[in-house]
Every structure is written in structure tokens, then in C-alpha cells.
């Protein structure tokens, strides 16, 4: 007989309260984690969306990419050796619209590579977010340090750096604007080849992202919130089941006295815990995904299925641990205790 189910049916209120708490906490966790992910996307989609690989900057730059100047000699030899490698630079700057409106962008220029937009001299490819701000293909844009004009050639999705839309420009234009001959970074796609280059320091993608100080601080605090919530929800589970179990000590004693196995009592608790958690998670996953769809464009929010699944499994695991820890009393309660306690 399914006692777990019968009890939930009879005490709907009690279990609904537990379920709604789990629902609220998990929804909050999903949303914060969606924000963390959205912000990190907004901050560094340009880098994040590159495949895994090695990033190189000069040792003297001391982990600050815009202080790095890779000599042309080194660059040429690396690019010759690795056909898919690319040298690129990122500089924060401004573009002026015809109306005189100024916008902050991240100028990116690179050697020829399928990983970056290809742009000819005098052209610019912009992040899609600028399109919704009213810039159209064929518009001309200017820059205070640039003599000519940029013609908007196209838009690309999800190209952001340091919360600014990326503007891909030709390498020659870049050199003219910033009066510089060297590129800052070299990227070799495809895992960690263990490649070392004299004078350069190698970073994995994550390591490189963490050299961007705003990125690191932002992600650290958001992720801390997420994990705090997860821990809190684990404690909620433990406390809630503990209280329910304390109320049921007498009942457990009686059930043991008539011969119910302890394992049956644990299974009953686990069944209830798993059922409630899955029930609550289903609703909050659904709402999280709805939020993902309807979140206003300006709000950096991105909740991937992978993250959702990972967090959900964590919730289940932590609920299981919390319930089990609080259920140790089930094992300890003796049948006599209940009989002597009087009416349950």
C-alpha cells in the first residue's frame, strides 16, 4: 500500500506549503542563475562564444589584455604554424551616428579567421543590439580618431564585450584609430595544445575571462548567491522534514510496533520528498523558461537547459540529503516510546 501517497493526499496543506517554498526558492535560483548567465553573456559573449582554446598575451602585460603588444614577428610565426590561429585586439571606444549621437562600442579587429566577422576597410559589422536601436545597414558612422567613414555592412548576434556592443572593423582601420602596429591577443582554437610561445603567457578560456576584472567580480557575486540559495533550500528541506518527522515520532513508533520495517518508513519519506521536489521544480522550470522567453530585450537573461538540469539535479540531491539527515530520528525511535507517549 502506498502510504506516502495516502499521507500527502490527506495532508495536502502541509505538503503544499513545503512544495511552494521549494518552488519559490528554486524559481529564485533559476532567475538569479539566468541573470548571472545573461550578464556574463552581455559582458563577454565575444569571448565566451569562441570555441575552447588557448589565449596568448605578452608576459609584460601582466594579465591585462589591453596592455599586451605582440610583436609582428611572433604573430607571423605563430599564424604560420597554426593555420586556424587568429590574432585580434579589443579596444573600448565610441562611434558617432549621422545624427551626432554617440555610442560606446568595443572595437574588435582580427586577422582573417572564420571565428570573427570579416570586414573590409571602411566597413563595420555591428552587434545585433544596435539594429534594434535604429541603426540600419548602409548607415554611415564616424569616429573622432578616424579620418574616413564606416559603412554599416551587417549585424551579428550575441557579440558583446564589457557590456558594450562589438563593432568589428578592419585591421588597418584599427591601426589607424589607435596608432598602433601590434595586436593584443592570439587565439589558437581546439583545447589545450600545451603550446608555449616565447615571451607570451597562455590562458584557457575561463582563465582569460577571469582576467577581465569586471567579469570576475560580477560572476563571483552572482554565483555566490546561486549557491547560497541552493544551500538554503537544502537546509529548508532538512528543517521541514525534521519538523514533520518530529510530529510523526509517535506514529513511527506505532508502525514499528506492529511490524513495519524501518526501510519502509524511509522509503515513504523519500517518495514524498522526491515527489514534492519534482512537482515544485516542474513548475519553476516552466516559469523560468517562460521568463526566459518574455524577459524584456534590455534585461540580460539567459537560462539554458543545461543550467536548469544541473540546478534541478542539485536540488534533488540536496533535498535527499536534507530529508535523510533529518530522518535519522526515524531509525532511532523505538516502538515503546510511542506507546508510552499516549494518543498520536
Amino acid at each position, binding site marked *: 500500500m502506498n*502510504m506516502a501517497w*495516502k499521507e500527502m493526499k490527506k495532508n495536502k496543506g502541509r505538503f503544499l506549503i513545503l512544495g511552494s517554498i521549494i518552488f519559490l526558492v528554486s524559481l529564485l535560483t533559476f532567475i538569479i542563475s539566468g541573470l548571472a548567465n545573461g550578464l556574463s553573456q552581455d559582458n563577454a559573449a565575444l569571448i565566451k562564444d569562441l570555441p575552447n582554446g588557448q589565449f596568448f598575451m605578452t608576459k609584460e602585460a601582466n594579465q591585462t589584455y589591453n596592455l599586451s603588444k605582440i610583436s609582428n614577428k611572433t604573430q607571423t610565426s605563430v599564424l604560420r604554424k597554426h593555420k586556424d590561429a587568429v590574432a585580434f585586439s579589443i579596444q573600448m571606444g565610441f562611434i558617432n551616428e549621422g545624427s551626432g549621437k554617440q555610442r560606446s562600442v568595443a572595437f574588435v579587429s582580427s586577422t582573417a579567421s572564420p571565428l570573427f566577422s570579416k570586414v573590409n576597410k571602411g566597413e563595420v559589422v555591428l552587434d545585433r543590439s544596435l539594429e534594434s536601436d535604429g541603426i540600419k545597414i548602409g548607415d554611415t558612422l564616424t569616429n573622432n580618431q578616424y579620418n574616413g567613414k564606416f559603412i554599416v555592412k551587417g549585424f551579428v548576434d550575441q557579440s558583446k564585450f564589457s557590456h558594450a556592443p562589438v563593432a568589428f572593423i578592419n585591421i588597418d582601420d584599427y591601426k589607424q584609430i589607435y596608432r598602433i602596429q601590434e595586436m593584443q591577443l592570439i587565439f589558437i582554437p581546439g583545447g589545450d595544445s600545451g603550446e608555449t610561445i616565447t615571451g607570451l603567457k597562455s590562458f584557457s578560456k575561463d582563465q582569460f575571462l577571469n582576467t577581465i576584472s569586471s567579469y570576475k567580480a560580477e560572476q563571483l557575486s552572482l554565483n555566490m548567491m546561486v549557491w547560497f540559495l541552493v544551500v538554503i533550500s537544502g537546509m529548508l528541506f532538512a528543517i521541514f522534514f525534521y519538523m514533520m518527522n518530529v510530529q510523526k515520532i509517535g*506514529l513511527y513508533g506505532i508502525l514499528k510496533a506492529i511490524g513495519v520495517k524501518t526501510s519502509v518508513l524511509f522509503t515513504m519519506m523519500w517518495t514524498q520528498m522526491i515527489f514534492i521536489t519534482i512537482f515544485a521544480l516542474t513548475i519553476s522550470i516552466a516559469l523560468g523558461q517562460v521568463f526566459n522567453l518574455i524577459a524584456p530585450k534590455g534585461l540580460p537573461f539567459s537560462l539554458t537547459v543545461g543550467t536548469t538540469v544541473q540546478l534541478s539535479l542539485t536540488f534533488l540531491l540536496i533535498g535527499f540529503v536534507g530529508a535523510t539527515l533529518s530522518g535519522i530520528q526515524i531509525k532511532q525511535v523505538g516502538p515503546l516510546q510511542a506507546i508510552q507517549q499516549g*494518543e498520536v
Partner: protein
Amino acid sequence: MTIFTIDKVRKTFMNGEMKDEILKGINLSLKEGEVTALVGASGSGKSTLLTIAAGLQPASDGKVLFEGQNITAMNQEQVRKIRASKFGFVFQFAHLVPFLTVEEQLMLMLDVADTKLKKRQQKKEIAKILKLVGMEHRKDAYPASLSGGEKQRVAIARAIIHKPKILFADEPTASLDSKKSKDVMLLIRDLTKMLKMATLMVTHDEEMLSYADHVVKMRDGLVQ
């Protein structure tokens, strides 16, 4: 026929630093189809003896023999199996499971006793017993909606639904008025005869003794 023997059972509790011997060598045997009443002053150790006999707590010394086996020497799981399938209990309070209907309480007991009956047979069996205790009309009721006497009758039904060999009852009528107490006593006596159980029952109530085949009095940790 004797089917249950309590042999020189002793029980000592630690009372702080002091050892307190509550049972000082109890001998008692129970026969099929007979009700044995256990009486004695409060604190004389009646409940202690009953719970030791039922395998709910260990004895300090002595044997409890059921079907030739000494249950004081068994491990917890072995005792649990015997309790689940061969013993029935009625306590002072009904101790029903609050979230199960009357019928479900009995179904649970049949599951626990591992009777391997099909659901249909279970229901038939349950209907029979509920009729016996006069509760068939309340089979879908939850305990909260039953009176004290009704609860106790369900508790008795639960104690015998799996056809135990031994029925233990600790003041089963203590929470009932005298009219209901008599009904419950009659029920216990009749069921004992009908199902050929051996019943050991603790009572405080002199009036209830007329329903017993034997009366055993406890005093100073011994039976007289």
C-alpha cells in the same frame, strides 16, 4: 494447549546510579483460546512484562518461548517478523494511523504481516473482521471522525486481522466508559475463542476480570 511461555523473566532498569529490579523472575504460560488477565498495582511492572513478552523490549534475563523458539535471543529483524505475522497488539490508546481510513488501516496490517492476499481477498477479509467488531459501516472513515470506543474497536480489528497466535492487550478499555468497556471485553473474549488465540491482557478494572479465563496478579516483581 500452551503455546507461549514466559520463563524466569527478569528486568532491571537503571534508576540513576541505582539498579531497580522490576521483574524478579516471572513465570507464566498462555493457552490457545484462553484470556489471561494480568492485574497488579500501578508500577508493579505489568506493561513492562507485556512489552518484553511481545518482543518490544529485551529482558535482562530469562526466556520468552513462542512455538518453541526463544524470542529474547533473536535479533531485531527476526523479532519484527514474528511481531508482524504472529502477534497482535491493542494498546491503551488506539494508535491508529491518522491518514488512513479504517479499511486502509487493516490493509496495511495485512501487508505488514505479509499475508500475500490479493486485493479482493483482502477486502473480503477486512469486511468480515469489521463486521465482527461492528464497524463495517465506517470502513471509509478516518480515525479523527471516530469516537474513542469506535477507534478501540478498529484497533482490535487491526490486531487480529492477520490471525495472530497471540494477542497482547494493555488496558484496552482504559479510555472507554463502562458500557463500551464491556463491549470491547466481550469482543476480545469471543475473538480469542473463535480464532483460537492466546490472549494476555493487562487491566486495572476489577469488573473486567469476569471475562478472563485466568487472573494473574503481580506483586513485588513476581506473579502470585
